[in-house]
């Protein structure tokens, strides 16, 4: 990286603080509307349905001649009331979790972009100490990745205490001291400082001084690009580990899929069933309600389906951002799109914002879906749950990290701007983002449809 930080006015960084304020406002409004107002209404509906269910249960236990008769109209009425209660609960969870996740995402985005902007705006101007003999095209290494890695180490060092302390904040039965948050919070602060310094170094980069590899086999290629591909290589291995351990176990589990396919020794009846996430999510899955109907239908698969489309569309929008940035002869489109994207700079920024929104939608729907699964009894406490939550959680973490980086790209697109000289920032981030899409192409059918 060749940035010096001395070509960007401190006032530019203050725009990051304003951006953080706007994002936080959107998050608070989203939380208030979805997580409080709508969720409260849904909570009342859930309470009503719960009372209906309790009444139906009482009628059934008092009036049914044979409690084991599942064709008794009172039993059917009780189970239908139970299904309505479950549906009302899941509806409440949808809005509550969506609102809370929006607030969390906005808080995280605002912390990174706001604190980063504030720290960089507070730095003394580098021009004051500028050496006239210093070649502005000279490239030099950055210590930021090392500081960032150190921050992660400190964060992980304090993670066990951090988890207990967080649980204590949510659950009165768990006791913890506030000091237990200390080490992890220090680690997070180091990470934020490292990231802000990283951005400080990159923001002035306008395409000069990209480091070029000088030896075979990548001679002449950008070192950042080569490094990113090697990083992707290691990432493929990480996801391959999740995927192969899942498939190894999956082929041995007695799933509904295996039963429908004829079963095997020890897997002949529904009493042998082991439930996977797809048994809760896909139509005809193994998880059934009291009436013997599969709980999986169009609506349970919908969040995963929307997420798949969201990632594919976001892959396309980031390609459009790159293509627009590289096109020196770009012309504003006509009509409504022309008003949205009057200039090349605005077009690149807006395509990146679209990508950011789609990625954020992915996180929101992912957590909504998790909350539904946990409410239905599919927890991380089982082997099936463990591999599902770890694999999809690791993927979600990659999406989240990508979104924090994208936040910075939006900021850069809005201030310095991207053009044909410095568009490689979008291109290399795009490689990472496409990889995240690629991983989902494998995870979605394996964990949701199979």
């Amino acid at each position: 990286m060749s940035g010096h930080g001395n070509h960007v006015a401190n006032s530019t960084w203050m725009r990051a603080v304003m951006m953080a304020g706007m994002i936080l406002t959107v998050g608070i409004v989203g939380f208030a509307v979805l997580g409080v107002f709508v969720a409260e209404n849904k909570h009342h509906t859930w309470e009503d349905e719960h009372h209906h269910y309790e009444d139906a249960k009482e009628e059934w236990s008092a009036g049914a001649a044979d409690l084991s008769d599942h064709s008794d109209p009172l039993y059917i009425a009780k189970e239908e009331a139970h299904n309505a209660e479950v549906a009302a609960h899941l509806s409440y969870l949808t809005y509550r979790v969506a609102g809370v996740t929006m607030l969390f995402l906005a808080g995280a985005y605002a912390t990174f972009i706001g604190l980063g902007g504030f720290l960089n705006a507070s730095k003394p101007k580098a021009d004051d100490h500028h050496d006239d003999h210093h070649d502005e095209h000279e490239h030099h290494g950055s210590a930021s990745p090392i500081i960032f890695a150190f921050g992660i180490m400190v964060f992980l060092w304090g993670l066990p205490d951090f988890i207990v302390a967080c649980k204590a904040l949510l659950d009165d039965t768990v006791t913890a001291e506030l000091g237990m948050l200390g080490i992890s919070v220090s680690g997070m602060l180091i990470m934020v400082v490292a990231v802000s310094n990283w951005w400080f170094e990159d923001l002035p980069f306008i395409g000069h001084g990209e480091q070029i590899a000088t030896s075979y086999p990548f001679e002449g290629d950008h070192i950042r690009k080569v490094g990113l591909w090697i990083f992707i290589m290691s990432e493929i291995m990480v996801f391959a580990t999740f995927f192969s351990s899942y498939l190894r176990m999956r082929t041995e589990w007695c799933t509904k899929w295996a039963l429908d396919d004829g079963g095997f020794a020890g897997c002949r009846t529904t009493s042998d069933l082991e439930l996977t996430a797809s048994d809760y999510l896909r139509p005809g899955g193994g998880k059934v309600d009291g009436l013997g109907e599969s709980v999986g239908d169009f609506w349970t698969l919908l969040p995963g389906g929307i997420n798949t489309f969201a990632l594919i569309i976001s892959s396309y929008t980031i390609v459009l951002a790159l293509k627009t940035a590289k096109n020196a002869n770009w012309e504003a489109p006509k009509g409504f799109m022309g008003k949205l994207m009057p200039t090349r700079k605005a077009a690149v920024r807006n395509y990146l914002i679209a990508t950011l929104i789609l990625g954020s939608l992915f996180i929101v729907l992912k957590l909504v879906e998790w909350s539904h699964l946990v409410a239905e009894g599919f927890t991380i406490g089982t082997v099936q749950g463990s591999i599902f939550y770890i694999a999809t959680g690791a993927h979600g973490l990659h999406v989240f990290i990508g979104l924090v980086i994208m936040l910075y790209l939006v900021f850069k697109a809005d201030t310095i701007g991207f053009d044909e000289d410095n568009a490689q920032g979008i291109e290399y981030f795009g490689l990472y983002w496409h990889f995240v899409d690629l991983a989902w192409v494998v995870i979605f059918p394996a964990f949701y449809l199979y």
Partner: protein
Amino acid sequence: MGEHAEFMGKDVYFWNFIVLMFFTLFEVGAVFFEGIPKATVWGILIVVGLIKGFGIAAFFMHLKDEHKWFNITFMFPWIFVALMLWGIGLSNPEGVTGLPSWCTPDWSYATER
């Protein structure tokens, strides 16, 4: 980059996007129609996954236009993926008898006395 190649006035990225969307609908649809045999659905999921993976890697990640060392860098870890999948075949309960002989070891030393 291959964005200059156009078909019906749209570039390769647009058509790749359309293909990815179509095949995603196709794989979700295959699961919705419960009458389709499971082995067929399994085959559809794998083939569609391969097509989508190729579309993302070749066009969105530009591997189609990169020199061979980037392609080798990308393909190298898949050797280990294949090995791990092979390992599943070796170690699952059906693997010993259910897979073709060329990819299973001779287990007779363990099963016969």
